[in-house]
């Protein structure tokens, strides 16, 4: 029974709503779809008892009608657990996880700047990565947004 299956069984045993949602893609890679409201409990359990003590990064996805947010957690010996949650586009609110990982602040600010999601509980700080005079309401990484650089200036 490889380590990945142990983690999978542990997840399914602890949280029955994850019944068929955990998928092992290859050695050291586990993908799991989690409902947004259960995220904190799964996160708390994985960090405290399963040794997923490093946050690699947080990825934002624009999936047409909903936003996807993937939390990539990794253990000391290289296994990555990718927890994916979906939040509606009209009310894109998230809770911050900076109390587990202070370094998550930069990744969450990226979600706010580039997708327009709202992350509550973030400490005060400068915005990242867009400049201060960036026009409000422009979210570059949304599918509909087209960059306006013409071909001559490096556009394609």
């Amino acid at each position: 029974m490889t380590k990945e299956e142990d983690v999978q069984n542990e997840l399914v045993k602890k949280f029955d709503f994850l019944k068929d949602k955990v998928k092992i893609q290859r050695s050291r890679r586990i993908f799991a779809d989690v409902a947004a409201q259960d995220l904190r409990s799964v996160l708390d359990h994985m960090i405290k008892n399963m040794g997923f003590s490093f946050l690699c990064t947080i990825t934002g996805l624009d999936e047409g009608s909903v936003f996807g947010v993937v939390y990539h957690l990794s253990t000391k010996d290289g296994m990555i657990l990718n927890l994916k949650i979906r939040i509606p586009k009209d009310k894109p609110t998230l809770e911050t996880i900076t109390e587990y990982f202070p370094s998550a602040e930069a990744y969450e600010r990226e979600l706010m700047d580039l997708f327009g999601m709202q992350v509550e509980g973030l400490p005060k700080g400068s915005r990242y990565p867009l400049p201060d005079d960036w026009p409000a309401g422009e979210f570059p990484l949304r599918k509909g947004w087209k960059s306006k650089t013409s071909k001559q200036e490096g556009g394609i």
Partner: protein
Amino acid sequence: MHKFTVPIGPQHPALKEPESFNVLLSGERIMKFSARLGYNHRGIEKACEERTYIQNVYLTERVCGICSHAHSSCFVQAVEEIAGLEIPRRANYIRTLVGELERIHSHLLWLGVAGHEVGFDTLLMYAWRDREIVMDILAKLTGNRVNYGINTIGGVRRDINTDQIKDVSKAVKKLKERTEYYVRVAKEEVTLIKRLSGVGVLLPKDVLKLGAVGPTARASGIERDTRKDDPYGAYGELDFRVITDDHNDVYGRTLVRLGELLESYKMISQILENIPEGPITVKAPRKIPAGEAVSRYEAPRGENVHYVKSNGTDKPERVKIRAPTLANIQTVAKMLEDRNLADLPIVIAAIDPCFSCTDRLTLVKDVGHGKGRKMRWEDLHSHSIQWYKARGIDFSDLNKKMEKLLK
């Protein structure tokens, strides 16, 4: 003591790339330190979504000038994992060889920059003179000194013949002797040790909490190296030691980087001895089937994480690039609490920040291109505002402030 805030950057001789730090000083001691990033943000993740996979290999190579092979290999591994391609062993060996050569040139470059930050320009001149040896080898192997372009989806683009192998081993022997000299200098030069030790202290528990990666974490005793934990390329078949150090400060990071150089030489000679025969590439489809993958690569500065999601077309749906410096920059604020201002450049340089890696997305601002007519500052300024207004982005409130200023 009277407190005042010293703005450092975005343009500053100590910083090779634009990033801005506000340092609250009382006398010479740093009380508070805040970083504002995003000046070198070029919209690479959005650009990746508009380009095909083949074009993206060269685009991800230009995320950073020093660790270009790291980003392109990380991206190519993710795409190969989604497409289910099994690349030949020889291609893996060549990709790992170029990766280690890049680590050598990046660490030697860092050694020089660290020397310059503490005012030891002789170390800069000698370290960068020896770095030329590895740059010439890379130019001979891959056809270019920096953006090697050796990676393609399904393998590598150039093979390595026997006399190139001889050149590389000769160069590695010379570099090994030079690096041993630098290790002696780092251990015996009193002014260098004085300026590096006890500076930028980062305790092991902070490393875990703040998520530092690479030599910054390994210098605080955390044994975390993606080549060992999550082997990719040919690292599964090479034996090497993960260098850690327990100085927890900039001096420890120097020793860790020098130790890693020596390990890289060992690995390169292993690669050159038992590089397998066989093809160097596998035919890759233009359209990658739908799927997603996370790939990690141990870049010279730390762990690169790439997340690629494909939707069956020949353009990726999402490419997320997390560079090591984004993880390490959070630790600089902790390292600099009540230190001296004089230590600030070396502490920032110690995490070997690469901000072109960190800021990957920016809209390229277009200033307009008349038929070569002479434009004074005012019309150039108003022209750019009109150009933007025509495209629906309006800076009107900024505009009024500027007008008042110019009057």
